[in-house]
């Protein structure tokens, strides 16, 4: 066999391996989604979404957990958004490139890798006990906000970095202050990228279970929360609770709950992809 044929063979082998790797993830996910759909789709109806939890599997619904997730999502956004974007703007546009700021940068990246249960313990100590919020929606939201803050900061900084330096030059040269440049040029130009990062971070938050269990979110809540200080449950905890029960009916409920949760994260990711594509076009 000559060298050219050998190289071509190597090429073919690697290509096959690449296709296999790509398909592996997709196929596994497809099998998982397929089996969940088979188990749970017949259970999903309007009642399933609007019913309160119950001891009887066929009457139990996800209403309280779904509402808990919605509350958590909204409050987490309100808390994490201004803090995360503010920190990112400071680090990217205002801070001098000193040793302190590079130390801060490394720490923020590290924080993104801290296991979520550690954030739960932090939230339990600070928000539940010291500030005495109790096991409330608010305490949960603060905890999850801390959890996604590093992701929001990193992705916002990436979006700001992607705005060409020439835009900053042009703005400053016309006599704009830093804040005018940030608010009138940089934020509008990077909003798509920032939004993408935030939505991806939130779709992670909506699936988090461990930190919320630690701060005392309940598996059984008779009513949906009506204020930030109420006790709450969220979808993943509800699913976890159902799956651990012996009766078959609850297994079906869990599958149905998973379908709803997946649907929420898929929709959120879809929105993120949409904004990213729209934003990428802007500079091309």
């Amino acid at each position: 066999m000559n060298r050219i044929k050998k190289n071509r063979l190597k090429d073919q082998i690697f290509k096959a391996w690449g296709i296999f790797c790509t398909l592996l993830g997709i196929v596994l996910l497809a099998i998982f989604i397929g089996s969940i759909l088979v188990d749970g789709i017949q259970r999903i109806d309007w009642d399933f979404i609007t019913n309160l939890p119950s001891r009887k599997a066929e009457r139990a619904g996800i209403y309280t957990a779904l509402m808990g997730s919605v509350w958590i999502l909204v409050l987490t956004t309100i808390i994490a958004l201004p803090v995360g974007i503010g920190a990112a703007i400071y680090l990217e546009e205002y801070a001098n490139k000193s040793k302190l700021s590079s130390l801060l940068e490394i720490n923020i990246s590290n924080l993104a890798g801290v296991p979520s249960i550690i954030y739960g313990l932090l939230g339990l100590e600070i928000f539940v006990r010291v500030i005495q919020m109790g096991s409330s929606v608010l305490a949960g939201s603060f905890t999850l906000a801390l959890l996604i803050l590093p992701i929001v900061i990193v992705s916002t900084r990436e979006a700001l970095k992607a705005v060409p330096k020439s835009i900053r030059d042009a703005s400053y040269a016309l006599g704009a202050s830093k804040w005018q440049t940030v608010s009138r040029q940089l934020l509008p130009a990077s909003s798509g990228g920032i939004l993408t990062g935030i939505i991806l971070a939130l779709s992670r938050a909506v699936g988090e279970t461990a930190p919320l269990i630690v701060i005392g979110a309940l598996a059984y809540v008779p009513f949906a929360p009506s204020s930030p200080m109420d006790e709450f449950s969220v979808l993943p905890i509800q699913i976890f609770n159902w799956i651990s029960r012996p009766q078959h009916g609850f297994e079906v409920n869990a599958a149905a709950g998973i379908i709803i949760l997946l649907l929420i994260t898929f929709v959120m990711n879809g929105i993120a992809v949409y904004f990213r594509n729209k934003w990428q076009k802007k500079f091309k």
Partner: protein
Amino acid sequence: MSKEKKDTVIDKSIKRKHKLQAKGVKVFYNDFMAIKGIDMNIRANKVTAFIGPSGCGKSTFLRLFDRMNDYVDGFRMEGEILIDGENIYKKKVNVEQLRKQVGMVFQKPNPFPKSIFENVAYGLKIQGIKDKKFLQEKVVASLKQVALWDEVKDDLHKSALALSGGQQQRLCIARALAVEPSIILMDEPTSALDPLSTAKIEELIYELKEKYTIVIVTHNMQQAGRVSDYTAFFYLGELIEYDKSKKLFTNPEKQQTENYITGRFG
């Protein structure tokens, strides 16, 4: 209009012979010395060209006059830069105010990703001007000044990014003119443009010098000869020779200058 009347209309300060002055200017980037002690006077209402090989410090020197180096990491300066006799590196100088007086045009056209109108109006809007009629008039006048009006008058609210490179650069000049500066700094304004667009910009520079003091950095010797009244040759962070363009290009004093303009190095 008589000569005197014109002067009072424009600005009293331009009667001063030297609009821009540098006194013992040294610039450092961390430990690297980019400008090694330059004294220079730049005349009002003339076009002064900075020439020299890449890395000679001419762009850095140009950007001192509107303090655009301030945000560069490790930047440090010694000496004084004076505009109309005032040191612009004094502590109490308002940098934003200074930059309204000194316009800048960059190497690559850099319009904002906004409409043509918004681009020109931006400098006025950030000053808090909201009067729509005034903004409209100012935008139209500025676009006419750079001879772009006829080409874009029906597309004022279209994206500036849709314009050609040459049009974008003229838009950037209009944007700078809208805030009524008295000085315009140009950092290789035509290096990214085709010959036809370049000719238009050069023509424009020639017209603008009546009202403005213009400093232009260029790599193009012919351009320096065509548009400038005075030319300064920089080499390795030093001002080698500075004279009337005619004199410098035909009969330079220094050997280094002659070597450079005849293309023997650089």
